[in-house]
């Protein structure tokens, strides 16, 4: 009998605590499949953030460290500098990465640290109960923006891929989505490229995943996918922002 579908070895056989319709489960599975496919599980260390995915270490069947809020790139830097032979990825939400962890992500990217960042952007603080995030859409109602995000008061949402791609060093920056089967297949391919680049010690790799949060958006899972397509995709274009085959350090330094 031929096996068509099974749990990746890189996932543990437990039920997650994620809400129905949340796309964390898809992102977890895609990472696990890619790590399995590349045969990296036994030398991979994941970094769990603070946020809904704080318990990711229970769901991935590999070594894991749990980071303080926003500091996952600092932990990953510490690990890779001490043990360049290990494969390391951080798994961070938008409150974690784009707010409290802004300094850590920018500088890790700018140093060209050889790890992979999986950035889950669902435009809201999930675990704390749906507060406004740096990525919350203009006009979007959250528990701390009850009249909708007022851009004249708190500015426009931060576009992390665009921000990081403006730096010279980072080698691979791409935004994906997982709200349609087609996007899921594409996202898997992008994650695989990111882990391959890390495996080959090429460059800093950053994959943003547009994600749904039906619970905090107050929508059904299906409505949430529609909301993401209609509101997030136009502002957060799903595309590659940077792809270099060579390590950034190999570029000749030619300053004007």
């Amino acid at each position, binding site marked *: 009998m031929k096996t068509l579908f099974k749990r990746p070895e890189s996932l543990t056989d437990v039920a997650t605590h994620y809400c129905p319709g949340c796309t964390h489960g898809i992102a977890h599975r895609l990472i696990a499949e890619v790590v399995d496919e590349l045969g990296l599980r036994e030398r991979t260390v994941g970094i769990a953030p603070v946020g809904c995915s704080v318990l990711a270490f229970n769901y991935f069947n590999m*070594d*894991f460290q*749990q*980071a303080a809020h926003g500091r996952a790139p*600092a932990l990953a830097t*510490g*690990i890779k*500098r001490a043990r360049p032979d290990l494969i390391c990825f951080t798994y961070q939400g938008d409150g974690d990465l784009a707010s409290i962890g802004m*300094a850590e992500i920018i*500088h890790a990217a700018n140093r060209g640290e050889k790890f992979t960042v999986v950035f889950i952007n669902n435009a809201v603080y999930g675990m704390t109960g749906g507060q406004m995030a740096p990525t919350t859409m203009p006009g979007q109602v959250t528990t701390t923006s009850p009249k909708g995000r007022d851009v004249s008061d708190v500015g426009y949402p931060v576009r992390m891929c665009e921000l990081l791609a403006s730096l010279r060093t980072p080698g691979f920056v791409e935004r994906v989505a997982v709200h349609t089967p087609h996007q899921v297949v594409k996202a898997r391919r992008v994650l695989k490229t990111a882990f391959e680049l890390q495996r080959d010690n090429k460059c800093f790799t950053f994959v943003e995943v547009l994600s749904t949060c039906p619970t905090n958006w107050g929508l059904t899972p299906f409505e949430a996918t529609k909301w993401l397509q209609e509101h997030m995709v136009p502002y957060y274009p799903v595309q590659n922002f940077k792809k270099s085959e060579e390590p950034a350090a190999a570029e000749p330094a030619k300053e004007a």
Partner: protein
Amino acid sequence: MEKVLMKGNEAIAESAIRAGGLVYFCYPLTPQSEVAEYLSRRMPEVGGAYLQAESEVAVSNMVYGAAGAGARAWTTSSSPGISLMEEGISYIAGSELPAVFVNIVRAGPGLGGILPSQGDYFQAVKGGGHGDYRCLVLAPSSVQEAVDMMPLAFDRADRYRNPVMVVGDGMIGQMMEPVEFKDWKFPPLPPKDWATTGAKGRRPNIVNSLYLNPAIEEDLNVRLAAKYEKMRREEVRFEEYNTDKPYRVLLVAYGTTARICKTAIAQLAEQGITAALLRPITLFPFPDAKVLELGRKAEFLLSVEMSMGQMVEDVRYAMGHEKPVHFFGRAGGIVPSPEEVVTAVKSRLEGSKS
């Protein structure tokens, strides 16, 4: 091995390398930046990892990551930087990881000043960051002692799986003294079978300090408390000076201040006043029993510090109501002179007569 003349900060750096502290992260801050400057040159020579980070917050979390992966990771900073590092130190304590933090203390609070101080005593010995934890705290009073402490700090960090803090005031970091790098031998350490080195042929290792179940979190707190009790039993270090003959006054001082007190004791002797010194070498665990034992033989105790009075609280706690415990300190980066200590002793002696 022959002695070499070195600045405290550079000697600490070299000693750490020789002790296998080969993963170092830093952020420049006076008066400890020479450690980073020295290691930026030296680490590549010895195949270690050196990185200047974006902030002290990042530094402590890089140390956390590297320590979790099994490295002998460490950093140095000074007071305002240590405040920022307390996040990582708390996580390191909560995840039961070994790491060494050196604090070359400067005056505070706030940005304070760059001159020597002992104003971070509370922060160092009472936890420092959030949560129910402590660091093992070592306080050198000479460059040689700082050099000798680095191998001990790394060993004890590994042995207890707990952060160790070396607290030196700016004098220790900046002064030049002849030092000798000795070969220290410690009993074998257990393997780091908890480190995140890749789950090859074993179950995954998880480095974590999150316990949503209160019973499990309490188990951690109880385990940590047992660790600190063991330190209280086995790690207390101190120096006694002039305690082998009768004395009227017991000075209690650590670090550079203790050296000043030794000069003050000689000056007091010339004036016919007998005094002795107890110098805590470990600030946590604090030598409570020794304070009580030696304090009982004196008319009173005087805690001398470069602060407005921090360690004195622990001296009083140790002494109870048995003998008066007085305080003398200078702050703001001003180092007390031996003459000032003599005057402080004499004024208390006169006060106790009336």
